């Protein structure tokens, strides 16, 4: 693992009026590392994810990102062009509901190809070929390339959303409950796919989940949140097998078998 973080969050806070969304949040993400953020509904984990991915204004604190040229600016200091580059190319965001991350009324191929066109690819044949390759990597038959996602099952939509995100070779992916809406057998397939792609591509990932089994399977490090604050963080298997904070102990004790 490289010594310099790709993302560094320090003293982050987000308030909604007097209400605290999240506060006193500090952590680093290193290249090739998967960090899971766990906690119950309302613990602030999605607020945190939206802040660090530039989708929500923060109230205080720093969020620094390692650009491809090695600079480490705060997101707030980026130019509009740099911000666009991150959103369209260098970052991915996998939503819980695929409909939030896909365009449901254009073809599967176009959903993948659109991200390529956004980074300047213009050759139709190349775009279609790359889209076909990516559909196959996420186990969608190439014959479905001209079908719209509305005709896809939930699991297929989620796999298409993953392909759409990865086609531009991003370095950092944010995921918000990527398997949340899927039934168990479909969930296993999506998880397995994510696990393999993350390892093969050396991606850094910040994944929000309330499912400790997902966190165990995908992440090396885990952050536990409660009432907007980090209550425990560390190596994923250490946090799950030897939880220290009362809330983490409650979480671990609440699942039938981790």
């Amino acid at each position, binding site marked *: 693992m490289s010594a310099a973080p790709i993302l560094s969050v320090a003293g982050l806070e987000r308030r909604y009026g007097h209400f605290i969304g999240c506060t006193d949040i500090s952590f680093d993400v290193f290249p090739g590392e998967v960090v899971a953020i766990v906690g119950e509904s309302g613990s602030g984990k999605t607020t945190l994810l939206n802040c660090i991915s530039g989708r929500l204004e923060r109230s205080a604190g720093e969020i620094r990102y390692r650009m491809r040229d090695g600079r480490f600016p705060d997101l707030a200091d980026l130019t509009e062009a740099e911000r666009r580059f991150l959103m369209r190319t260098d970052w991915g965001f996998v939503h819980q509901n695929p409909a939030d991350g896909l365009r449901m009324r254009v073809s599967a191929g176009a959903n993948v190809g659109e991200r390529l066109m956004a980074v300047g690819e213009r050759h139709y044949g190349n775009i279609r070929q790359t889209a076909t390759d990516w559909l196959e990597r996420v186990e969608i038959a190439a014959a479905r390339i001209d079908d719209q996602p509305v005709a896809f099952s939930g699991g297929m939509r989620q796999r298409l959303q993953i392909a759409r995100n990865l086609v531009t070779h991003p370095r950092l992916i944010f995921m918000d409950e990527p398997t949340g809406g899927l039934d168990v057998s479909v969930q296993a397939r999506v998880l397995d796919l994510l696990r393999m792609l993350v390892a093969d591509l050396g991606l850094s990932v910040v994944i929000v989940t309330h499912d400790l089994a997902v966190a165990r399977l995908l992440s090396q490090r885990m952050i536990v949140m409660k009432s907007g604050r980090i209550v425990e963080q*560390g*190596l994923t298997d250490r946090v799950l097998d030897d939880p220290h904070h009362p809330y983490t102990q409650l979480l671990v004790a609440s699942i039938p078998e981790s």
Partner: protein
Amino acid sequence: MIKALDIEPLLCVDGVRKSFTMHLRGGIRLPVVEHVSFRLVPGECVVLGGPSGVGKSSILRMVYGNYAVDGGSILVRDRVSGEMADLAAGDPRVILDLRRDSIGYVSQFLRAVPRVSAIDVVAEPLIARGVDRTAATAKAGEMLERLHLPPALFSLPPATFSGGEKQRVNIARGFITDHPVLLLDEPTASLDAANRDIVVTMIREKLAGGTAILGIFHDIPVREAVATRIIDVSAFSARKAA
């Protein structure tokens, strides 16, 4: 013992303490072990002995970074830099680096990942170190053949395997790399005599190659065949004082 001091140790455990605080049970504190101190040099197999519940598995888990410690240090020699790194300090990245290159662990039970085949489970630690997938898979196949896992099972996920088959997958995974320190938690518990003998041979080969092994073996013939030293964990038990 005098000899052990002359050779550079691979693992130094010094003054380690561990207790569990059960917040869901009114904050009751369960002491496990204290003053745990020992060291391992290349080529020795140190066996943790003592009755059930005395803290043997907890010590193994602390040495692997799976359990946090309350105090003390656990120094592991980094295979890459040659320096000693303190795993007990709890820095996740230090622990992950040590696990990749320097310290391996064969747990009592295989934690199966859905949809991942037995051969990929075994090959994974080599791939994580940058070994080419084809070469890693070939080596994994050799390991599984040696442990007499039927080749028809190689491409299946171990979730449906018998206890003995799962354990052999687990052993193959733990033995495929050349980690200088290897932790074994009852690796032969669910094996028949023939497979147990193969594991004993594999342990002896590791020792001859300079690996330091720390293990729990309730199986007396296995323990007698591999142990170079036995540490009675009762001496570290914190329960008597509680």
